[in-house]
């Protein structure tokens, strides 16, 4: 029994000393400083954040000019964080007129990036979101009622301009306008990426051009049809009686 006691005490002391040797090793290494130090701290705010690799998923951004509004991302997204509108431009190609990503919902899973056929969606390594640094990537909180509101380029400019001023110094009209468009307590954190891709004039022009094209196409089709009808000698079968079933 005494031997067991002695063994326990001695082993206890020895193992504690072993532990202290291990920590002492770290202690000395790190107190000595850079040489041989095992401290792996990155002093983030002072030093820039580490960019580990190109695949890093810091933030989701959409390169709006390349987006064709195919909704592939929308379909692939498990959380439905996209809100997008598309418009046809002069060449009858789809372009994003609005592409919002609710960053408060986004789970950075990358499924949309994999689904994107034009590679317009991508994950950036940067995770800091600074609305003041990049106007094309702008974050607002909005309430659900405001989600449906459409902001055009001048609106966004106005939003950005007013953003840098303290609220107290704003005119009442401006303040009201803002309250109408964003809500700091709103649940949706919306990154407005492709905002205002069309100015109203551009949109009008594009619509007009597309309309003209469509009309021309229809006219051509009608002409072709008429020609074909004229060419076909036997008259078509009699139409079914009106009303379908008696």
């Amino acid at each position, binding site marked *: 029994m005494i031997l067991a006691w*002695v063994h326990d005490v001695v082993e206890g002391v020895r193992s*504690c000393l072993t532990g202290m040797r291990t*920590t002492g090793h770290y202690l000395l290494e790190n107190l000595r400083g850079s040489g041989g130090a095992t*401290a792996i701290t990155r002093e983030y705010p002072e030093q820039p954040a580490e960019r580990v690799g190109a695949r890093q998923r810091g933030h989701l951004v959409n390169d709006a000019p390349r987006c064709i509004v195919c909704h592939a991302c929308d379909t692939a997204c498990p959380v439905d964080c996209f809100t997008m509108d598309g418009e046809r431009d002069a060449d009858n190609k789809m372009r994003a007129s609005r592409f919002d990503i609710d960053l408060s919902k986004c789970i950075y899973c990358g499924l949309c990036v994999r689904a994107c056929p034009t590679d317009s969606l991508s994950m950036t390594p940067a995770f800091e979101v600074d609305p003041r640094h990049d106007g094309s990537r702008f974050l607002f909180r909005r309430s659900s009622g405001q989600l449906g509101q459409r902001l055009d380029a001048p609106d966004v400019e106005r939003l950005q301009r007013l953003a840098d001023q303290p609220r107290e110094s704003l005119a009442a009209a401006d303040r009201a306008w803002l309250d109408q468009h964003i809500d700091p307590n709103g649940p949706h954190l919306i990154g407005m990426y492709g905002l205002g891709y069309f100015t109203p004039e551009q949109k009008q022009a594009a619509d007009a051009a597309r309309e003209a094209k469509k009309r021309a196409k229809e006219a051509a089709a009608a002409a072709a049809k008429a020609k074909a009808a004229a060419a076909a000698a036997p008259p078509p079968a009699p139409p079914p009686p009106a009303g379908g079933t008696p």
Partner: protein
Amino acid sequence: MTGLGHAVDTLAAWLAGGPPGWFAVTLAVLAVWVAPLLLLVFPVAAFGQILERKIAAAIQRRKGPNSAGLDGPLRLVFRAVLCLLPRERQDRAFAAFCNLVPVRTALLWSRRLGLGQFVADGIKMLGKEDIVPRGADGAVFRFAPYLALVGAFLPWCVLPFAQHLVMLETEVSALFVLATSGLVVVALKMAGWGSGNKWSLLGGMRAVAQLVSYEVPIGLAVGGVVLWCGTMDLHAIVGQQYAPGVFTLLGWNVCQGPFLLLLLLVFFVAGLAECQRSPFDMAEAESELVSGFNTEYSGLRWGMFALAEYTEMLLIGALVATLFLGGYQSPIGEQWLLLLPTWLETLLHALILGAKTLVVFLLMMWIRWTLPRFRVDQVMRLAWLVLVPLALLSLLGIAVTLLVAGGTTEGMAYGRLAARPRPDLSWLPWLLLWIVPVLAAVVLVRAANARYGGRHPALRRLTGEGA
């Protein structure tokens, strides 16, 4: 320095004209002794927290606090000095001042070393809401931190800092230390009970059980020293440890045979437990009891508990130094130190004691960040089944040594301390005193190892011993 005692007397006499005499004496003692001591011990204890965080960081491969420098307090001072200038000018002046190269360097280093951290922590605690929970016993809850501070502070009164720097010279100062440090028990119990929280209550209970148990090995360890030195006066114990010659450290108690060395270990371990340090921090075991007895404390009151803990750590360090490591004596060439002018000698002695305390203090931190925590029953088992038997064994050994030694001989006079009788040990018994118990211990350990063997092979593989 009897001068200080005179100062107390003079002040008391001067004050005695007005208020009643006891009040004057109290006031005088407060002014001359307590205030400076408070001003010395508590900032050091607060600084100990930063030290601890830095050490923990180094052990854990981190950097530790390095963003809070002294610029905050400095700006306050600046604003106070330039209070008549408009704010912008103050700012400009401050920026210009901070841009001076030496100031900038100093601020940079203060930040790197985290010097401002404990200022910031203290300031924050000051501004923190002082919560007394609804279910708490208000008076007990509020009073407990003060009591803890008092308990941690009182033992310092009898500690000899230098030959001439003892606040209270009594014949029974060792007993005084043991008695007053027991106040902390009450404080912790009050905190635990008064909080009206089950975790606090459990923490308080644990604290009481642990502290009361560990008073026993501590008492036995002190008793061993008292037995060896033949006095209960801490200052006399320090004087007893004086040895002539270059290597003054040969006279220290710790060199007086393996039993006193063992007692040092017992005292140190029990001291760790007394100040609730890991591995004995069951009373505030974070992963078990949320925060133990101080779960409900916020702000400054919590800060007081933390301060009390660090003060007590310092105290244990100082006691280890005083009882076993020659107190304020220098390890080599002590007799030359006595030839210096009194003020210089006092200063050096205080610094030496501080250094010894610091070493023990650092050791406690090192242990804290290395070892896991004991369980309740293990703590008790350690106290009663390991430390107490070891202490008793040492006491027995010391007693036998004293018997075997051929009576007593007149020791050395040390400074203003008179010579005291000491056990008559010539070199051969001294050598035997070391060799015989150590040999016995080695034999016992080898036998135990042979009987119970080593670890499981898998564990050896894990630690790389097998390879």
